[in-house]
Structures are given as structure tokens and as C-alpha cells.
């Protein structure tokens, strides 16, 4: 029973949504669902926060190796939550001074924007910047002419890499006009327009069919592994 009801909820909800896309009266159902979903996800933050707190409190109480880091995580979590939820140090919006919480958390100079600017931004964008190092090491290791596929992969990457800088212009800029199509910068655009378009299109068509089949598997009750286990 515990599996059957959820399965039917999914089936009915799914088919209703599918049909609603075709009924002009119900066309906004998708957007309404997006709102409902966002609210449910925001409420579910309580669960995530609970899990986070539990993990770290357990580490703390067990005095696991590195429990000090758990203190940092928990402390920073609680402080940020406190500052943000109560809008500490935020003025009301000048247009609506009578509403105490009308100010935006992002106002310059607030504690919240300090956290954003001096903690979240440097930490996350540096994490993001690590990619520059990883693309280099991945290119060194993986782009080797082992077979036809690998050769195509690396030659294309090579053309685009060169074509997207001034080096491409220097290397092939002297090509005469009738062969301008072979200049690296044009070649890289050509690759994008023809090969990349073809590849991406086929991937997209495939994905559309994949999504349709996955969705139908769920809606026909064939695939129940998301409910746990194949055979319910």
C-alpha cells in the first residue's frame, strides 16, 4: 500500500499535467506547479538543515577526527541563518519606510552583503576557477591520438583553441581570400555551425525521446525503481 498510493499519485499527476499543456484553460498549470514546487523545496530546507546539523553534531559528540571543522560549519551556518532570516542591519526600503522588513538583504554595507561579497563570492568563484587547471591536466592526459574518435576529438579542440585567440589570426591570417574559409577562426565557426550543430541536434532529439520514454515508464508504472526496487 505504501508504494501503490504514491505510484498512482505520480500517474494521475503526470497525465493531468500532460493534458493540461493542450487545454488553453489550463495552460498555466505548469507555471503554477513551478511555484508549488519552489515552495515545497523551500519548506524542505528544514530537512536539509536537519541533516546537516545531525551530521556535524554527531561528529562533534563522537569527537571524530577533524571535529573542529564541524564546529566551523555549524557555527557559520547558524550565524548566517540568524543574520539572514532576521535581516540584521537592513534598513526598510525608502519607498516603504513603514514596513520594517521591506529592505532587501542585498543592500550595500549590510552584514548579509558582507557575507556574500567576502565569503561566498571568493570561495565559490575560486572553486569555479579551479577548472582552468583541470582542463589543462585533462587535455594533457586524455587528448591522445589513440584511435579515429580520439583524433577527431583532439583535432577539433585544437582548431577551436587556436581559432579563438590571436594566435589563429597570426598563423593563418595570410591565407588568400578564396581560401578564407580555411583560416582557423573561420574554420572554428564552420565546425560549430555544421558538425557541432549536427551533433547537438541529434543529442537533443535523442534526449527528447529518452525523456519521453523515461517519463512514460514512470507514468505507466513500468519503472518503479525511483520508488525503490524494481518489483513493487
Amino acid at each position: 500500500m505504501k508504494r501503490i498510493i504514491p505510484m498512482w499519485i505520480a500517474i494521475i499527476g503526470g497525465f493531468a499535467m500532460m493534458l493540461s499543456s493542450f487545454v488553453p484553460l489550463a495552460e498555466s498549470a505548469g507555471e503554477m506547479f513551478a511555484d508549488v514546487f519552489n515552495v515545497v523545496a523551500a519548506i524542505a530546507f528544514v530537512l536539509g538543515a536537519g541533516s546537516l546539523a545531525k551530521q556535524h553534531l554527531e561528529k562533534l559528540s563522537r569527537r571524530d577526527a577533524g571535529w573542529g571543522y564541524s564546529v566551523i560549519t555549524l557555527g557559520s551556518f547558524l550565524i548566517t541563518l540568524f543574520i539572514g532570516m532576521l535581516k540584521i542591519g537592513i534598513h526598510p526600503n525608502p519607498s516603504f519606510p513603514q514596513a520594517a522588513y521591506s529592505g532587501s538583504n542585498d543592500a550595500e554595507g549590510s552584514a548579509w552583503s558582507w557575507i556574500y561579497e567576502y565569503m561566498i563570492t571568493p570561495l565559490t568563484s575560486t572553486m569555479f576557477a579551479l577548472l582552468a587547471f583541470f582542463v589543462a591536466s585533462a587535455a594533457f592526459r586524455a587528448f591522445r591520438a589513440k584511435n579515429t574518435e580520439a583524433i577527431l576529438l583532439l583535432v577539433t579542440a585544437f582548431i577551436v583553441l587556436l581559432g579563438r585567440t590571436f594566435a589563429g589570426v597570426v598563423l593563418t591570417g595570410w591565407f588568400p581570400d578564396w581560401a578564407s574559409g580555411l583560416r582557423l577562426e573561420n574554420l572554428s565557426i564552420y565546425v560549430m555551425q555544421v558538425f557541432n550543430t549536427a551533433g547537438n541536434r541529434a543529442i537533443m532529439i535523442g534526449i527528447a525521446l529518452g525523456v519521453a520514454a523515461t517519463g512514460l515508464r514512470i507514468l505507466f508504472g513500468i519503472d518503479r525503481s525511483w520508488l525503490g526496487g524494481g518489483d513493487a
Partner: protein
Amino acid sequence: MSAGNFNNTNASARPWFERLDRIDRRWIFLLMFLAVSGPILWIGVTGKTLPEAPTLAARAVFQEIDQLPAHSLVLISFDYDPASAGELQPMATSLVRQCAAKNLRMVFIALWPLGNQVAQQTIQDVIRDDYPALKEGDDFVNMGYQAGNEAVMKLLLTDFAKAFPKDSRGEATSNIPMLKDVKMVSQFPLLISVSAGYPGSKEWVQYVISAYNEKMNFVTGCTGVSAPQLYPYFPQQIAGLLGAIKGAAEYESMVNESLAVDGVATAPKYLQAQRRMGPQLVAHLLMVGLIIVGNVIFFARKRRGAA
């Protein structure tokens, strides 16, 4: 260097290519750091930038804006946040600058929560600082952020004022002089999106540009990651496309050239993208070099294996 070394390797020591192949990847990281920081320091100290040769897609962006008559309405959507500002801010700055210099009437919107913030910053840096004659409400207006992603786009198709009921100052849309006659998005002859992902250029094409059978002109600037997904739409749906910092640098150089005044150096804020092309060039060359070295190792090993 390969053949000579190769025959001389002594059987007990590992051949050079094996050693090179097992090189600690941290050396590669170090090289990458130097390849990026070296040019930044050099350009920062000398102030020199590399020349640019604009490609088709970037030239198209420039021409789309250039051909509009003065006082045309332009809708500029800021679909990115500070995290992607490194790539996209130079484009946004140059796009707004060209529009301001052409005296177009600009309507700024944001579909990313933090897009409003970057839009404000761009307005401050370009319009308020350098084109103080343009008046908010008459020549440009910032409508701020609206939540809803594609839903906002779809709403724009039918009712502009409903999608953006007030501007970022809190003024009702119906009271803004330049928007008096604007009912829907199709009244803008040009739509510009500076986009870092979802929602962004692709959604604009799908929901707005396609809806008008490509009657509206659309130019966009995007991050390197999303560029490959957008090239299929160029030039039919997307009339002009700035891909990553390279596109930004090409376009920036065109705008600078068109607005250059003899004897006056271009302000540094209008050279951001071209400055960033320095580290790009060296880092790309490093990548190319690494790929070549990787393959030299591969072939050396193959020959050894075959011998």
C-alpha cells in the same frame, strides 16, 4: 628531439617519455597559473593589449545596433550574475555603450535575481558616468528583476506592463514616458540578452524570437560554455553572437574604434575584454602545447612498443 633521445635511453632508467607521462600534474597546474598570471601582470604594468580581428558573428552584433535609427527602443536583458561577470561584463559594458552613443532608448530587464544588480552597475558605469545627458525614464529605464524565467518571456509576448509592472525605482510602468506606447515585446526592434545560462539566450529564441517568426532581431552575448549550444541558431534566429571573452574583445575593439576620439585614450573600463585576451592567448598556447606533448609521448611510446 624525439628520435635521438629515444635511441640513447638506457635500459635501466625510465625513458624520457615515460617520465614525462607520469609527471606530477601539479607541474601542469603551476604552468597554468604562470600562463595566466604572467600576462595579467605584464598587461597590468604596461597597459598594452593585443589587436583583434573581429569575426563574422561579432561584426553582426555591431551592425545590428549600428543600423538602428536614433531613439529606437532596445530591450536589454541581463541574464547573468556577478559569478559570470568576468566573461560577460565587458560585453554588457560595450553593448550599453554603443546603444548609448547611438542614442537608442534602452529598457533594461533582468531574469536572474542578481541581474538587476549588474544592470545597475552597468548603468552607473556607462550611462551615468559617460552619457549624463540621457535621462532615466525618457532614454533608459531599468525594470529590475522578475522571477518566473520563461513565464516572464511568455508574458512579455502579450503584456509588457504585466510582466514588469514597475521599474527598479518603484515607478509604475504606465507612468514611464518611454514605455507609454509599449504593449508587447515585438515593439522592440532589437532584443539583446547577455546570458550566462538558464534562463537566457536559448529560452529567448525558443519563446520569443520563434514566436515572432524571427521578425524581431536578436543579438546575444554568452559564456564560452553556452556558445556551442547557441551557434546552431546563428544567423537565423540569433542575428549576432558574442562568444565568451574572445567575442567580447572583438566587439569591444569595434565599439572603441567607432567611438574613438583622436588624442583621447579609451577609458580603461572599455578595455576589460581586450586586457583579458592576454592571459587567454598564453593559456590557450599552453593547452595546445600540452596536447602536442601528450601526443609526442603517445607516439614515442607506440614506436617503442612496436620496436
